C-alpha cells in the first residue's frame, strides 16, 4: 500500500474506533519500514484530532471518543517495541499517576479520565482503586510524575485526597507535582481547602485541566 493511503487508513481506523484494525495497520507500517513516529503523527493522530473536533461541535459522543482512545492505545502498543528498537521516543505531554483513593472502589470515572488523558497525549499510570496514600506517592516519585490525579466518590474517602497532598509535601515532592482531584462530592472549595491544583466534574474537562496545569 502507498504510504499516504496507509496513513489515511490509520486515521480512519481511529475515527471508527477499530482497535484491531489499528493494530493491524501499525504492524503493516513496521513491515513496510515506516518510521513509527510518522505512523503516529502523520497517521493515527489525525484520527484522534478528527474525533476530538467532531466531539467539540456535537457530532460525536463520548463512546466514540473512548473507542478512538482505545484504538489509539492498541496502535501505539504495537509501535512501541519498534520505537524502542530505533531508540526514538514518542513525545508525551506529561506523566500522570492516577487512582481512586484508599477505601473507595468506584472505578468508572477514574478509568474514563485515564482514557481521556492518554487520548490527549499523556502517559497514564492507572493504579486502580482503593490505593493507599503512600503507594500513590511512591509511584509518583518512581515514575517522575508531573500530575497525580485522585478520584473519590464518598465524603468519607475524599479526605484521602488531602492525605496525598500532605504526603507529597512530606517527602518534598509537592513542588514538582500538580494534584488533580475528582469525583461527585468534589467541589472547587474542596480543591482550595486541601491545596490541590485542579479539578473537573467530567473526564473531558479533566484532560483540559491537565493541559492547563502543565501549560502544554
Amino acid at each position, binding site marked *: 500500500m502507498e504510504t499516504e493511503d496507509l496513513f489515511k487508513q490509520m486515521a480512519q481506523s481511529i475515527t471508527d474506533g477499530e482497535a484491531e484494525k489499528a493494530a493491524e495497520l501499525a504492524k503493516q507500517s513496521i513491515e513496510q519500514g515506516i518510521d513509527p513516529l510518522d505512523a503516529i503523527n502523520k497517521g493515527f493522530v489525525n484520527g484522534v484530532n478528527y474525533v476530538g473536533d467532531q466531539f467539540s461541535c456535537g457530532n460525536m459522543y*463520548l463512546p466514540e471518543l473512548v473507542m478512538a482512545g482505545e484504538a489509539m492505545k492498541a496502535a501505539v502498543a504495537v509501535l512501541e517495541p519498534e520505537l524502542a528498537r530505533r531508540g526514538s521516543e514518542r513525545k508525551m505531554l506529561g506523566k500522570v499517576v492516577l487512582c481512586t483513593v484508599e477505601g473507595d472502589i468506584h472505578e468508572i470515572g477514574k478509568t474514563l479520565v485515564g482514557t481521556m488523558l492518554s487520548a490527549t497525549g499523556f502517559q497514564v499510570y492507572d493504579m486502580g482503586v482503593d490505593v493507599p496514600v503512600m503507594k500513590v506517592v511512591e509511584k509518583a516519585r518512581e515514575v517522575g510524575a508531573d500530575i497525580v490525579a485522585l478520584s473519590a466518590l464518598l465524603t*468519607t474517602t475524599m479526605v484521602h485526597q488531602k492525605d496525598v497532598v500532605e504526603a507529597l509535601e512530606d517527602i518534598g515532592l509537592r513542588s514538582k507535582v500538580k494534584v488533580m482531584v475528582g469525583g461527585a462530592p468534589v467541589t472547587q472549595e474542596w480543591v482550595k481547602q486541601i491545596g490541590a491544583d485542579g479539578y473537573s*466534574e*467530567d473526564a473531558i474537562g479533566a484532560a483540559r485541566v491537565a493541559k492547563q496545569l502543565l501549560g502544554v
Partner: protein
Amino acid sequence: MTGKIKSITNPKLSLEILTPEEIHRLHTATLDIIETTGIRFPSKRALDIWEDHGAHIDRKTSIVKVPGQIIEDALKLAPQKYDLAARKPEQDLPLDGNHVFLGTDGCGVEVLDINTNKRRTSTWQDVADIARVADALEEIAFHWVAVSAQDLPPKTRGLHELRAIWENSTKHAQTESIYNEWEAKAAVEMAVVIAGGREALRKRPVLSIMQCTAPPLGQDGGSVDAALIGAEAGLPVGFMTMAACLTTGPATMAGNLVVGNAEVISATALIELAYPGAPVFYAAAQTASDLRTGAYTGGGPEDFLFGAAQNKLSDFYNIPLSMGSFATGAKEPNWHAGVENSLSTFMASLVMSDMLLGVGLLHGSRIWSYAQMLMDCEIFSIIQKVMQGIVVDDESLALDVIRSVGPGGNFLSQKHTLKHMRDLFIPQFMDRRPYNVWEEKHDDGRDWALEKARNILNTHQPEPLEPAVAAELKKIITSVEAR
C-alpha cells in the same frame, strides 16, 4: 403539624409498563447473568455464605456464580409486607403495596444556606435542620441522611448523622451513609436504644439501611458487611442499583435493567440466605449517562421509564421498592427541576413504589435546597391528588345540583359545592395571582417555599429524645471514636 403523614393509597390510576412475558424475560436474563458471568462480592463473609449455600466462588476475583434456583428460592424467603417503624408509632409506615411514602433525598455535599441562599459545604447542623423541617412536613414520611456532616470525622460521621435525625424528628430514619461492619454495629446499638431493646427493635425497626451496589455487576464489600449486620438485628435492608446506560450498563434500557436487577437480587438473596425471612427491599435509581460527558444526569425520559419498570420487577419478587425519583440534575430550582421531578415521581407513583427518594437535592443529589424541598413536597401532593383519579357515583355526578342550577346559573352558592370544594387542590407555590400583583413584586413559588422552610425552622419544636436516650446515643458514638 407533627404526626400526620400523607401517602398515596388506594389509587385509581395504574400503568402497565411491561407485560408479564417481558418481566419474565428480564428475570431469566438476570439469572443467566448471575449464573454464568457472576457478581463481584468483595467481602469474606459474603463469599463464605455463598460457598456454604452451593454457589461457585472465586476467592481471587471475589466473583460469585450462583445457580438461578438458589437465587429464586432465597428471594421467596423475604417477607412481602412489613412496617418501617417510627419513634412515634402513629408514624409507622406500612410497606404493604398500597402506600407510597416520600423521603428526603441524600446524601448531598453542599447546601444553599437557608438565610443567605449562598452555596456552602454541608455540616452536622444542616442534617439536624433538614430533619427538623422534614419532621414538620406531612408529605415527608421518613428520612434519608440528606447531606453529609462534613465538619465531623469520617470515622463516626454516619453515626452523628443518625443522631442528628433522631434528635430532630420522630419519623423513621433510613440511612444510606453507613459503609462498613463496625459502623453498622454502632448504628444498630443506637437503634436499640431508641427502640428500647433488641427485641423491641426487631418488632419495630426505627432504622432501615440502604446500600448502593457497585455497578456493573458488583457490590461494595463494606456495604454488604454493613447490610448483614443490619439484617441480623432485624433492620430492613435494601440494595440500590444506579447502573446507568452507556457507562455502567448497556446503552439499551432492557440491558441496563438486567445489570441493575442482577446486582440487587443477588445481594438481596445473600441477605435471605444469611438470615431467612429478614425484611428486605429493592432499591433503584437507574438512569442514562450524558452522551457528551458520561456524567450522572439525574433525570430524563429513561429515568422516568426505569422508575416505573423497577417496581414491576420488585413486585415480581414480592418485595417492597425504594425508588429514586426527584433528584433532578438542575442547578437551581427551575424549569428543569420541575419537569424532571414531576415526571419521575409521577411514573414511580403510578406503579405504587413503596418509598420515593427523595426531596430537596439539586445537581444530581449534590446540593441541598430548602426551596426545592418544599416544592418537591408540592409535586408529591399534586401527584397524590392525581392518583385518586375521578370518582363516579351519585354524589359526585351531582345531578340534583346540576338540575337546580340549570342553564346559565353558577354553582358557587350550592351546599354541594361547600361540601366538596376542599376536595379541589389548593397549591401553595403556584402563582395564580392577577398579573399586576405579580408584576409589583416579581416573586414566585421559590420565594414562598423558602419562606415557609424558614418559618418551620424558626418555630417547629420536634418532640425531643428522652435525655437519657440522647446521652446514650452520644456515649455509643464516643466509644467508637475512642477505638
